[in-house]
């Protein structure tokens, strides 16, 4: 699914990721944990092609293709999805119009016919129910005036509609109360399948009570300093990150 080999990356002039390697197979959930400033968000941004984030060396293979050579939208159409830590508000652009354009783009790429507006609306309304968003949100501007939790649920709704093969959740739990967290987690769990993989980037172990990972990696100083099973998250919860940073130093 995704194979990152010896990746070095920088944001503007600052080296953030150092010699990072990570292999993700279909159906797996990998959690990326780590202290603030470890480079967790940079990984998601590099994978999705965010301007300003540059891979200086190393390789990333996504479904057998060279990810780093693809445009932002190509990556999305190929099935890569980044749920934003801070989803953007776009007043004046209706959520429905935006969602339909993205789903159309993905379907076209997969050689599937475009959905009619009517069919799409039906699917969108059903999907909004799955993340407990009132259908009225579909008519509003993209994330316009949404609360933090509503924005995150909107991200999960987009993920459900686009049916990506690789989902990257960038601190999706930040700023969520426990109810919203459960809605988001249930949404993610409902999408688990043998063909779909997840990268769950989080600072806190709490999310991983609800979305149980197959692997946990600790990112510190731009590299993976420790990898393990789901029990590693509990160990981190108990001991914090500093012992690992000390270990590396």
């Amino acid at each position, binding site marked *: 699914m995704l194979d990152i080999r010896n990746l070095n990356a920088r944001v503007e002039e600052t080296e953030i990721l150092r010699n990072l390697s990570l292999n993700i197979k279909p159906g797996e959930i990998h959690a990326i944990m780590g202290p603030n400033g470890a480079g967790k968000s940079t990984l998601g941004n590099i994978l*999705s*092609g*965010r*301007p300003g984030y540059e891979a200086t060396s190393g390789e990333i293979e996504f479904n057998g293709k060279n990810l780093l050579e693809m*445009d*932002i*939208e190509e*990556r*999305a*159409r190929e099935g890569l*999805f*980044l749920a*934003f830590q801070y*989803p*953007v508000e*776009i*007043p*004046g*652009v209706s959520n429905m*119009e*935006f969602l339909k*354009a*993205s789903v159309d*783009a*993905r379907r076209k*790429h997969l050689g599937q016919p475009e959905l009619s507006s009517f069919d799409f609306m039906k699917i969108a309304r059903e999907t909004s129910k799955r993340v407990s968003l009132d259908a009225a949100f579909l008519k509003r*501007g993209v994330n316009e005036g949404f609360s933090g939790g509503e924005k995150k649920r909107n991200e999960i709704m*987009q993920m459900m509609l*686009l049916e990506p093969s690789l989902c990257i959740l960038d601190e999706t739990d930040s700023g969520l109360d426990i109810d919203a967290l459960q809605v988001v987690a249930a949404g993610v769990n409902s999408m688990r399948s043998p063909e779909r993989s997840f990268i769950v980037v989080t600072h806190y172990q709490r999310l991983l009570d609800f979305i149980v990972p197959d692997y946990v990696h600790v990112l510190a100083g731009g590299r993976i300093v420790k990898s393990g099973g789901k029990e590693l998250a509990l160990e981190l919860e108990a001991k914090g990150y500093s012992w690992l940073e000390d270990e590396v130093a």
Partner: protein
Amino acid sequence: MSETSPQDFKHLALTLAGAQESAPWLDTLRFEGTEQWLEAQWPGRRTELWKYTPLSSLQRGQFTSWGSAQAYTLADEALLTLDAIRLVFVNGEFDAQASSGDAAGVVRFSQADSTQQALIEANLGKIVDTKRHLFASLSNAWTQDGVLVHVPKNTKLELPIYIVHISTPEAAAATANHRVLVLLEESAQAEVIEHFVSDEQQQNGFVNSLTEIQVGANAHLSHYRMNLEEEHLIHIGGVHINLASDAQYLGFTLSEGSQLKRIDYQICHKGKGAHAGLNGVYLPRNKHLLDYHTNVEHEAPHCTTSEVFRGIIADSARAVFNGRIHIHPDAQKTLAELSNKNLLTSDQAEIDTKPELEIYADDVKCAHGATVSQLDQTSMFYLRSRGLTEKQARTMLSFGFINELLQDLPQQAVREHLHRHLTQLFDKDQFVS
């Protein structure tokens, strides 16, 4: 082609007036207009009201004849689909076949009865402020025909008045003069839609348009004005509105650019408690020059104004926005807001924006502001990360920037027409590339 000197241009314009056959009862207005037009100083770079808008393309135009009704082909859905009293003019000439419906009080000047003539005489050219609007004098000098919308006291016009001005190119560059007079008496209510459109051929005309509006006490007018002409047409237009006590004016204006387009709005709060809402959108591209000047005079207390203009300026186009609000000493308890936001979609695009507040009363609440920005890069990334191409994302964001003003328009036919029309416009490569 070389530029005609201001003096020659003025005289040529008056030669056109001389070629008209007009009713004697309009002579006074035409005569006064002629005098003012001759006396007026020709705008130059030091003329504050015309600082950024040279008239050179007008002076190059050689407009020596009047337009006449020509056959035209309009694109599908170029006109609004709505149930309305419809008055269609082609190059300034009334097109009876394309027009439909009638209502008491809605009449062309040339068909007015003696009572209506008296109403026109008493009001036409009296609402407009010719000192701030040079081409209003010319319009007065050129007055021949026009549309009167007169709504008596406590009367509501059930259907909207839809006035369409179609331009077509002619063998020799020609001129059209459009005149509208709207008189709403006390507690009257009406909706007027002005739609300027051209067939798709390259235009060579000059349109001078002037709309005067008197909203009586407690009367209510909704007014839409759309300038969707082909990019070679020169249009200079003005809308001048007087508001009596507790009158309400809700205006919406949208213009595409052309080689020269200048539109003035002047709103005077004459009676206490009046409200004016004016929203506008301008969309110049290519090498267009598009200038909006608005001026709101608060002469009476307890009046409110809300004005929002947004522009998207593409390619090497230039837009000018000047919004002035003038609070007179007697206009206590005024609430006035003016906002102007601009989106530049290319490095060569230019906006000269100047919101102005002049306040001579001490108990008022006023706010004004202007912003100039480019497309937000984070939003661009967000849309592209969902599979939209860069062009799709730019189109969507640009449309979103003005859609906030479009989506709330109460008149469904206008809203849907503009949505469709602008979607096509934004899909054209040049607009957002």
